[in-house]
């Protein structure tokens, strides 16, 4: 048994951290956050060149054929540095294609997603913001060899930079009669919109389908049996988001710790007072626990599929709750400095509000943990 990173994984971590420290320090994050799409095509290309966009993709499609633990190592670091890039969503598209698409479909999209020339995103949620099959109301009417989609997807990550969307839609009235397809963003009848978001390192918006044609060659798996694909995607989204949270929460703790050592009041560093010291100790426990849950969830994603639902829910529920709490404590520790634009604390605070509902908040995951017992 080894609940630790291998030498190769440690090396990967160091490499990612160095790259992001060099190419995407916090000042670059700020600049990118103020660009129209909070996205840098050059940075994206570099990520591709380093092999990080195809980490879990088989070599035949240009990927590195690694596992979710390696992916988690990457995402912890991008979370730590608040990298503005559509990495999580695009990676989820990649992961879904790898295990749910036909050979032809993989051939068609994976190489582009891996080499960075194509960006993917995920469009599951609708107005109800519910992660259940019944919440999917987007209609797919049969049409010749495919479907015509009509409806609206909401809360889509970085919709403007995506070249293709993974879209579940309804092809029958049965609760789970869901079909999943890849829809290109340039399709006729598809329009998209992004709104200014609080966490400005990300964009979020709507994708509107007004009679969008999707040929059968873009459907993943059998028609009407797409829900398991979506359910797996949601679990992976929860783990990927939890990984980004772990890195961000650790960074926030580190910032607060350094501030507490540095800042003096009444002749002592404020970190000498139990009123500051104890919250820092609790934060540390929460960060370490988030990481334990996350690493295990990442490991089971590759090695023990049966354990995925519970492990993913534990990881996401815990991490997103604690990240929000840590954000509040970090601001209180920093005092007035914490809400200046110069201090990065507020960037993490906003990320926490983004990350909490993403792929299910703790209400969703807690309810599911009990549900998994058949209760």
């Amino acid at each position, binding site marked *: 048994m080894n609940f630790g990173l291998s030498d190769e994984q440690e090396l990967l971590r160091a490499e990612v951290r160095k790259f992001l420290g060099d190419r995407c320090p916090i000042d670059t994050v700020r600049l990118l956050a103020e660009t129209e799409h909070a996205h840098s095509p050059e940075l994206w290309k570099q990520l591709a060149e380093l092999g990080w966009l195809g980490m879990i993709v088989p070599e035949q499609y240009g990927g590195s054929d690694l596992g979710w633990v390696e992916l988690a190592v990457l995402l912890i670091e991008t979370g730590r540095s608040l990298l503005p890039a559509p990495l999580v969503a695009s990676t989820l598209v990649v992961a879904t294609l790898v295990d749910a698409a036909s050979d032809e479909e993989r051939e068609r999209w994976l190489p582009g997603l891996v080499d960075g020339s194509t960006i993917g995103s995920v469009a599951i949620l609708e107005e109800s913001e519910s992660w259940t099959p019944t919440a999917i109301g987007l209609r797919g009417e049969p049409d010749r060899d495919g479907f015509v989609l009509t409806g609206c997807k909401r809360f889509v990550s970085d919709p403007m930079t995506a070249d293709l969307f993974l879209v579940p839609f309804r092809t029958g009235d049965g609760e789970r009669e869901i079909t999943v397809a890849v829809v290109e963003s340039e399709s006729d009848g598809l329009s998209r919109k992004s709104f200014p978001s609080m966490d400005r390192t990300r964009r979020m918006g709507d994708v509107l389908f007004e009679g969008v044609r999707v040929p059968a060659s873009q459907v993943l798996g059998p028609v009407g049996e797409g829900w398991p694909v979506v359910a797996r995607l949601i679990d992976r989204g929860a783990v990927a988001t939890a990984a980004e949270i772990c890195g961000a929460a650790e960074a926030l703790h580190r910032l607060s710790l350094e501030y507490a050592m540095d800042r003096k009041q009444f002749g002592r560093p404020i970190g000498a007072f139990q*009123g500051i010291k104890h919250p820092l100790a609790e934060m540390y426990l929460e960060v370490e626990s988030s990481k334990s849950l996350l690493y295990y969830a990442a490991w089971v994603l590759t090695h023990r599929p049966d354990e995925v639902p519970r492990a993913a829910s534990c990881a996401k529920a815990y991490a997103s709750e604690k990240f929000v709490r840590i954000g509040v404590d970090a601001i209180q520790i920093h005092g007035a400095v914490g*809400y*200046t634009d110069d201090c990065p604390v507020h960037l993490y605070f906003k990320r926490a509000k983004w990350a909490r*509902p993403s792929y299910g908040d703790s209400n*969703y995951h807690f309810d599911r943990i009990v549900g998994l017992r058949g209760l």
Partner: protein
Amino acid sequence: MDFDLTKEEEAFRDDLRGFLDEHLPPPEERAPDFLPKWWKAVREKRLIGFAWPKQVTGGGGSLMEQFILKEELLARKAPMLGRDVTGLSWVGPALIQFGTDEQKQKYIPEILDGKTMWCTGYSEPDVGSDLASLQCRAERDGDEYVVNGSKIWISLAHFATGIYNLVRTDPNPPTKYDGISCLLIPMDTPGIEVVPIKNMSMTGMAEIFNQVFFKDVRVPVERRLGDEGEGWAIICSALQNERSSITEVMRHSQRLESLYELARHSRVNGRPALEDAGVRRKLASIETQIEALRLGGMRALSRQLRGLDHQSQASLGKLHNCNLLVECADFALELEGSANQYMAGSEAAVDDGRWQVDGLAWPVTVVGGGTPNIQKNIIAERILGLPKD
């Protein structure tokens, strides 16, 4: 124990209601030029500085009348009673307690008329909540002080006409609490520079904070408030008066109604939020805490009406208020789900983005008024008598 109004108080309230019926339309009916008219009317009715002495053109109202006034104003979502907010909350009360007759006659009517716009110079870089460690120097030179140093976290300094500034007049005092004085400095005095600080909210409140630099700023001695070295006593008295809890309570009550409204059109796991036991209990818990804050404020007022000590209780109200602010700000953003990212101005924003403002503005109030940790120290040491750290 008695929560009813006396006949006289009821008469006062009825008269006030008549006045407000005439001069204060509901928010949605207020015209763009409403504010100057409102200020003119309440000034004539002597409602600005309502509890201040009549000699300085204040209202001479009683504490209980002031309480009734605030309740009525807040119930109707009235705008602020005067334009010079800092003058009304900080400078005026300090002048009434510590100012000379000349100072009172000179500064107070200006504040009430809204001719001035004061700001306060308390915090300094690297000083934070240890306020008494301030370093901004004022050296006596004949009939003037020469001020050098800087102040930070000053709201509205870029609009201000004057700064109510704490300075060190004795560089080697027996304790750090000695040798501090209070100067009333016009902002157009040569040597003052204002630099805005960007803050996280980006919600219309951006850049309300400033750092103010003083370089050889010359201030006539008669602009000193109180005696030389009396600054700490003045500031302590002011900090205790800082916030009227009734105002906070009414704001929280309005916030609670909005939270119920938000819950009415939100969903938890796809189902109506108001059917979720967790949401219902959270709303009720917030409602209960607001009720406790309201009643705590009334207990303090009640003591004040009877001339008993009430100021030591102020920290309790502040701590309570901070806890509520943090809880409400986060709860609303939780209820909104992913839409919590959509800011004011976006067509996708929920409730016009008001919860994003709340969610990002709380640190200003919670940290600005002294962090919860500081309130806990004050409660523990001053009220409970525990030893200092």
